[in-house]
């Protein structure tokens, strides 16, 4: 079975490349470039996971995360941010994100967090490295 992943990043090149790379690894990845379209795509389709940037042109990434977690409490959200500091990451983890990464991040680690093990959700940890 293919995991359906939504890639949200205001930088089109990053979103596209990431989606393509995930596609090459047997994921069904869809790139979107702002918070609004991300939320609308989530309502139309069912996704297994999201790679979410915190700085988006329209809605704040934390806001997107909050709404997503309200609608889909089981969604696996991985934060990938170039700006996030420890405080933001702490908030994200409290809201229900499974992991947080600084850009640039290693794709293997991203995937690892997205797939996760069955009990990972309960022991969400901050990936500093």
């Amino acid at each position, binding site marked *: 079975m293919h995991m359906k992943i939504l890639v949200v990043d205001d930088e089109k090149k990053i979103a596209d490349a990431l989606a393509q790379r995930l596609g090459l690894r047997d994921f069904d990845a869809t790139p979107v470039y702002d918070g609004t379209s991300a939320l609308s795509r989530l309502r139309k389709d069912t996704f297994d996971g999201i790679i979410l940037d915190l700085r988006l042109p329209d809605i704040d990434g934390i806001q997107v995360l909050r709404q997503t977690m309200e609608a889909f409490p089981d969604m696996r959200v991985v934060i990938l941010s170039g700006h996030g500091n*420890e405080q933001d990451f702490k908030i994200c983890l409290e809201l229900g994100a499974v992991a947080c990464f600084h*850009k640039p991040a290693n794709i293997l680690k991203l995937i690892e967090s997205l797939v996760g093990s069955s009990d990972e959700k309960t022991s969400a940890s901050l990936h500093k490295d």
Partner: protein
Amino acid sequence: MKKLLHLFTKIKPKFWDIRVSKTQVQILFNYRRVWLISIFMLTVVSLIPLSMFMIFNFRLAHEAIQRENRLRTERLTSNTRRTITYFLEERLDALRFIIREKRFNTLKNNVELIYLLRNLQMGFGGYIDLGLIDSFGLHINYAGPFDLQGKNYSNQKWFIRCVEDGTYVSDVFLGYRKLPHMIIALKLPMQNGSFYILRTTLDIQKLIQILSSLELSEKSDVFLCNHEGLVQTPSKYYGEVLKRVDLPIPEYSHRTQVIEATDKAGNPILIGYAYIQNSPFILMLVKRSEEIMKSWYSLRDEIIWLFCGSTVIIFIVILGISTFMVNKVYEADQTRLRAMESLASSSRLITVGRLAAGVSHEINNPLAVINENAGLIKDLFTLKKEYKEDQQLMELIDAVLDSVERCGEITKQLLGFARHFEPQIKPLQLNRVISEFLSFHRKEALYRNIDINMDIPEDIPVIYFDRMSLQQIFLNLINNAFQAMKDGGHLDIIVNRQQNDYISIIIRDNGCGISSEDQKKIFEPFFTTKGLKGGTGLGLSITYGLVRKFNGDISVQSKIGEGTTFTVTLPINSEGDFQNENLAR
């Protein structure tokens, strides 16, 4: 010499060695100059009135004493003159009495004259002989030890003068017996127009007695001289009898006078003199100035000592006050400077932190683009067999990805650096954290054979604290301990739980210790005992500042030669006390 140098370093003002240099533009004053000006001004305004007052007083006292001495001399001279005048008048009056009492015929009788002379000698004393001379100058009757009867005096000076004036008092002269004596004579006019003269010779012993009865000091002298300057009665210092006096003859004055002069040896003297009426005598009273001014000299010495003493005391007080004031100004300046410096450095660091954070954030996105795209290329190549085999291509892609990763590390570190300036309260496991901090010193401890003993009980709770601050507090204290200890020293680190949610951390070394004087100052900024060898004097003041910032406390106990114990008390949860300022976002 060494002691003097030591004393100087003790009293030397703190600002003494501060030089105004171009790099220290913040120093507002040239402290030495301010200090010197202050001393100069205070000295001038206090010592000028004092010295003026002293000179004024000096003069006043001098004049008063001088006037007093003149007055005293004048009075004494005047009194003596009266006595001598009276003495001579008395002698003349006796003759006058005889002339009026006895008739000419009686006086011509030699037996009567001898009888009269004896009576005079018994009543008054000092009469040597008595003679009657007629108007032709012939000695017609004589009573006395010499045979002068029949002698003619008509062309002698005294006879002529006596005929003219009616009375005559002679100078002292040496008679036949070579004894100084004098004569007095009185003219008695007769009814028939003729006259005769009664003449007597006086021993001057009586005069000498009068003069010597004056109570004079050792160096003072009193004597008679005549108008020609010949000494008439014995003088102690100013010439022999009938020789010229060694002093200038003072001008005629009908009153008693006091003049200042110098004697032959050049000593300043005070001369009181009086011309004695109806006689050729001048009474001279001579006092040595140095002697009569003796009381003045002692007073003068007292005044001078008083002046010198008060000058020294005033100067010491001025020195003390000036030094104290300028020291205060200097200290105030230093505190201000320090505040400015720390403000400048912290604001500089904050700026750098913000810049670093900004740059990192901006670079992270393009880095991510490179990362994903290079990753995608690698992915694509890996899928296609023809490229997968191409070793060089794969290496190139990996090189790009490695570089991206390295850049990512750098930006992450920069962000971390920026975050150093904002305290982050986190739960800390004390025993773990302290062990980590000690790892900086493990090698040195091993090398110097220093024994580190940690005593952290199990029940010490997790504390909420900023890790960087705690590290700084610790490292400063442990650094100091290491510097104080000799090789083979002993360091204890003991953590205790205190009441009211506080813990205390005790760091005890057995090093050289801190003197009680220095203990008061060790938390002051820039206080260092490491001399010029590199202590900034900031370590403990930073520690103190940090401890206080987190509502903690720090104290020190130390004994020279036995060691030092620092006790740091910290709240278990500093989050509530400390307002988190987010500086570098």
